[in-house]
């Protein structure tokens, strides 16, 4: 984890050296959270050099994305994934971070702040960004160990520790935060009860109908939801043991999470004598009642409003930075929208839907799809929207709402979404994003508007990854990935670098997303993946099923139950289907070597089963053609008897290891390429891959085994072994890239295993090594395989571990009668006519 290591800090002679000639104005920020750091980022973007910056943070971490604590709890992200600014960012921008040392006092006359450790620092401008404190309901037992809130990384750690022990948890509060906590704890294996005071879950964001749908869905996932339930006490001796409701019900629990609301954290400001109401009062440039003290984020009150979501922070920070750099734009308040971050449950709400004078409701329900949509219109303008089950149009409604667009003309079609309302009826997502206004929000997690994404694309970010890297859009929860991709397409036309496309028409996720989620959420079967990632088809299609089967197989060696019906015919039948429906059979010949017993057995099979043709393949082995599926098990039994196993000529797997005769026979040979080839094939055979994988080993640079058009090729030289990667023959021939040179045979084997595992874990299904390497760059491969010795060793051992389960000959299993139904016809019995 990327901890900032100078906390908890003490004031000592180790104070970071500040050059005395640094006479710039000193900006001190209290609060190293989302608003505090964003304000500094905005400021730096406007004028990098104007202020010297010091940030105090109570938490012992660098700045992280608080809203992503929910995915961390749910196991979908790690703490590292949610860091917004790493230590490098602070040092590159000369920002002094004092983490783990909260500010305890402000002296506005002396213009200094003092921290818990006793450090006193002077300021020219002070920015208070202390966020909120969780509200703790004053019931008996609230201070028992095991009763926590859900606000920071420490709380997540506590929850994970409790979940590790299993048992039951109670979450008090059925709002956004409470439900995300309950979801995470459920995924972590706890039995969760949610206690909610109101009758409707998330009543501030949802209406009754949507709340009911949500409640039903959560109950379906095993949570107990008690609405209209009032907590009387938390009981326990020395630690929490349960919660008692006013009606006497007792719910045992080893963990109680209180998520009943937040209060602006204003104590510091109040003590310093600043104007504080519900929050710290600020003007349109976030200036408090003291012109040298600013405040931003959840701790402030602007124009009578306090906020508890991130979107307003982004607007506030812009106005604040404008003000600090003498541009006067001014914050005008924010309209907010909410999205619940619970995988598989799409809930969106925005604006006001309490109804009232002059409000009209437009409602659409589709029970079979579990969809509920409600748009509230007043004076021909959208004032609120609640969407459940289908939230794709959330952004569009929200945009219309914020711009106060007149919707009279599209009123009748409004509820069907943008595609219909904008005419045509056909869904063109590109036209849809093109139609969004520049300030429409694209990425809610990082507060990035369409205009900003477009600007960053125009500045040269021409792939999804580049956009994620430069303006952070779609870099957090990923739910706006589709929008960003469409923007790329709109702005760049054909120049867009194909980023992760969706896997197939059954899902909106790309290969990489699906794969990441499989690992992060520890998914264990194809139906589970389809359920959790909301596949749009009942059981996928012939594109996604084999891919998912592979991803699961790769993620769970030895545990995953291979699904035969998700395999392409060749892999299901362990032979290559030919155009007449018969099969060809290629037994393995290690390194292309054979012997009389094998040749005799092959000859016998050819005669016994009337195979019309035998051919030497380009991969140096023999291919027996024209075998019927019924005969395959018997053919395999005969070949097994002579010691031969499956050659996997049919699989997305290791195919052949082609060799030349090398130093053993050839006058030019420098090393034993044949022997090495055999060893490599013994190590790698049977492994499943994203695509087919071919290897060759040549005994000298004359390269008779054509190693430089293989996925992994070895070219022996006097001083050792050149390792080549990423070549293939085929329609677009690609010669390999040189990976490195090694001096021993063992190293050649080790690097080969590591490379294969990297390919297995990171390439997309049906992506051969050549396009994969062109996509990620050979330097990346080198950094993982050549430069990172420990990483290489880990990859290698993961490969060998997975191989320990995959080197059973599939032919032998079939010859012994497994999956007989795949080879035998059904037995028909004629029965009497009706």
């Amino acid at each position, binding site marked *: 984890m990327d901890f900032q290591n100078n906390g908890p800090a003490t004031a000592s002679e180790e104070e970071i050296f500040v050059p005395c000639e640094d006479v710039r104005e000193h900006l001190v920020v209290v609060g190293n959270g989302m608003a505090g750091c964003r304000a500094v980022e905005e400021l730096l973007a406007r004028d990098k050099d104007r202020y010297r910056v010091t940030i105090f943070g109570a938490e012992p971490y660098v700045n992280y994305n608080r809203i992503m604590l929910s995915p961390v709890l749910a196991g979908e992200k790690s703490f590292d994934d949610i860091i917004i600014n790493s230590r490098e960012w602070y040092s590159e921008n000369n920002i002094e971070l004092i983490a783990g040392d909260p500010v305890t006092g402000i002296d506005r006359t002396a213009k200094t702040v003092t921290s818990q450790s006793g450090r006193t620092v002077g300021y020219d401008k002070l920015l208070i960004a202390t966020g909120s404190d969780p509200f703790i309901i004053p019931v008996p037992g609230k201070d028992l160990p095991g009763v926590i809130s859900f606000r920071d990384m420490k709380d997540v750690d506590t929850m994970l520790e409790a979940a590790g022990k299993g048992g039951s948890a109670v979450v008090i509060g059925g709002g956004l935060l409470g439900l995300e906590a309950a979801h995470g704890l459920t995924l972590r294996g706890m039995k969760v009860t949610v206690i909610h005071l109101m009758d409707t879950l998330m009543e501030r964001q949802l209406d009754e109908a949507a709340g009911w749908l949500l409640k039903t869905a959560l109950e379906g996932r095993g949570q107990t939801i008690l609405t209209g339930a009032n907590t009387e006490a938390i009981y326990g001796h020395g630690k929490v043991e349960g919660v008692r409701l006013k009606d006497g019900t007792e719910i045992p629990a080893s963990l109680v999470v209180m998520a009943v609301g937040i209060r602006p954290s204003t104590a510091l400001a109040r003590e310093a004598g600043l104007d504080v109401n519900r929050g710290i009062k600020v003007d349109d440039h976030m200036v408090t009642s003291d012109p040298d003290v600013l405040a931003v984020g959840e701790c402030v009150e602007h124009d009578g409003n306090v906020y508890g979501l991130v979107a307003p922070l982004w607007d506030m920070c812009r106005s604040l930075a404008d003000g600090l750099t003498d541009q006067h734009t001014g914050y005008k308040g924010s309209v907010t929208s909410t999205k619940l971050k619970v995988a598989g449950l799409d809930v969106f709400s925005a604006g006001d839907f309490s109804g009232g004078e002059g409000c009209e409701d437009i409602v659409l329900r589709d029970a079979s799809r579990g969809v509920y949509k409600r748009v509230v219109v007043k004076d021909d303008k959208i004032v609120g929207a609640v969407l459940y089950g289908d939230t794709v149009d959330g952004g569009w409604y929200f945009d219309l709402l914020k711009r106060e667009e007149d919707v009279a003309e599209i009123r009748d079609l409004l509820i069907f979404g943008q595609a219909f309302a904008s005419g045509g009826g056909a869904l063109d997502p590109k036209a849809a994003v093109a139609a969004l206004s520049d300030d429409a929000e694209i990425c809610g997690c990082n507060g990035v508007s369409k205009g900003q994404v477009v600007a960053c694309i125009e500045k040269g970010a021409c792939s999804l990854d580049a956009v994620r890297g430069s303006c952070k859009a779609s870099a957090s929860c990923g739910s706006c990935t589709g929008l960003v991709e469409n923007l790329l397409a709109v702005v760049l036309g054909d120049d867009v670098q194909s980023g992760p496309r969706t896997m197939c028409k059954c899902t909106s996720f790309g290969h990489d997303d699906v794969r990441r989620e499989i690992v992060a959420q520890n998914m264990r079967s194809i139906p589970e993946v389809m359920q959790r990632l909301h596949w749009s*088809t*009942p*059981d*996928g*299609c*012939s594109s996604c*099923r*084999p891919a998912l089967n592979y991803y699961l197989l790769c993620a769970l060696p030895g545990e995953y139950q291979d699904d*035969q*019906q*998700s395999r*392409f*015919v060749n892999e*299901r*039948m362990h032979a290559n*289907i030919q*155009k007449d*429906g018969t099969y060809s059979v290629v037994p393995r010949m290690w390194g292309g070597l054979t012997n009389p017993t094998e040749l005799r057995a092959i000859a016998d099979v050819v005669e016994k089963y009337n195979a019309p043709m035998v051919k030497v393949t380009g991969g140096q082995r023999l291919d027996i053609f024209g075998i019927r*599926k019924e005969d395959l098990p018997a053919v395999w039994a005969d070949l097994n008897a002579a010691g031969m196993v499956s050659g996997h000529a049919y699989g997305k797997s290791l195919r052949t290891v082609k060799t030349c005769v090398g130093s053993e026979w050839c006058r030019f040979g420098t090393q034993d390429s044949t022997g090495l080839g055999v060893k490599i094939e013994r190590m790698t055979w049977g492994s499943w891959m994203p695509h087919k994988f071919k290897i060759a080993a040549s005994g000298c640079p004359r390269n008779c085994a054509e190693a430089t058009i293989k996925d992994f090729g070895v070219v022996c030289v006097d001083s050792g072994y050149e390792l080549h990667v990423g070549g293939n023959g085929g329609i677009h021939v690609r010669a390999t890239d040189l990976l490195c040179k090694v001096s021993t045979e063992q190293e050649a084997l080790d690097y080969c295993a590591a490379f294969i595992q990297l390919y297995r874990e990171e390439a997309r299904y049906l992506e051969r090594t050549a396009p994969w390497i062109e996509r990620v760059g050979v330097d990346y491969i080198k950094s993982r395989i050549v430069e990172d010795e420990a990483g290489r060793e880990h990859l290698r051992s993961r490969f060998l571990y997975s191989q320990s389960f995959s080197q059973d000959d599939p032919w032998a299993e079939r010859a012994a009668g497994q999956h007989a*139904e*795949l080879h*035998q*016809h*059904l*037995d*028909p*019995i*004629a*029965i009497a*006519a*009706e």
Partner: protein
Amino acid sequence: MTDWIDIGTLADIPQRGARTVQIAGEKEIAVFRTGDDKVFALVNECPHKKGPLSQGIVHGHSVACPLHNWNIALKTGEAQGNDEGCTPTIAVKEEGGRILIARPVALKAAA
């Protein structure tokens, strides 16, 4: 009047898979079982180049041909999407836990 042939039970066919039935003098028949346990029977020949449909990946109520990935609707035998062609279908019914298919001769007569 239809002749029916008993070909076994649902359990004999793998879910999202198919088995074949051979009847003397007739084209091979593929009997499919879908993810929701519906059973369909088609002549085991793709309308494109006669690929053995029984070996394809069954998804929803379609099968992807193993040779060139045409998608064939199990209910109608028709190629989907931009591809054109149709494979003859065979009536299927269930009786007392047994699966019965109509004798293809009868089908021919009816056609």
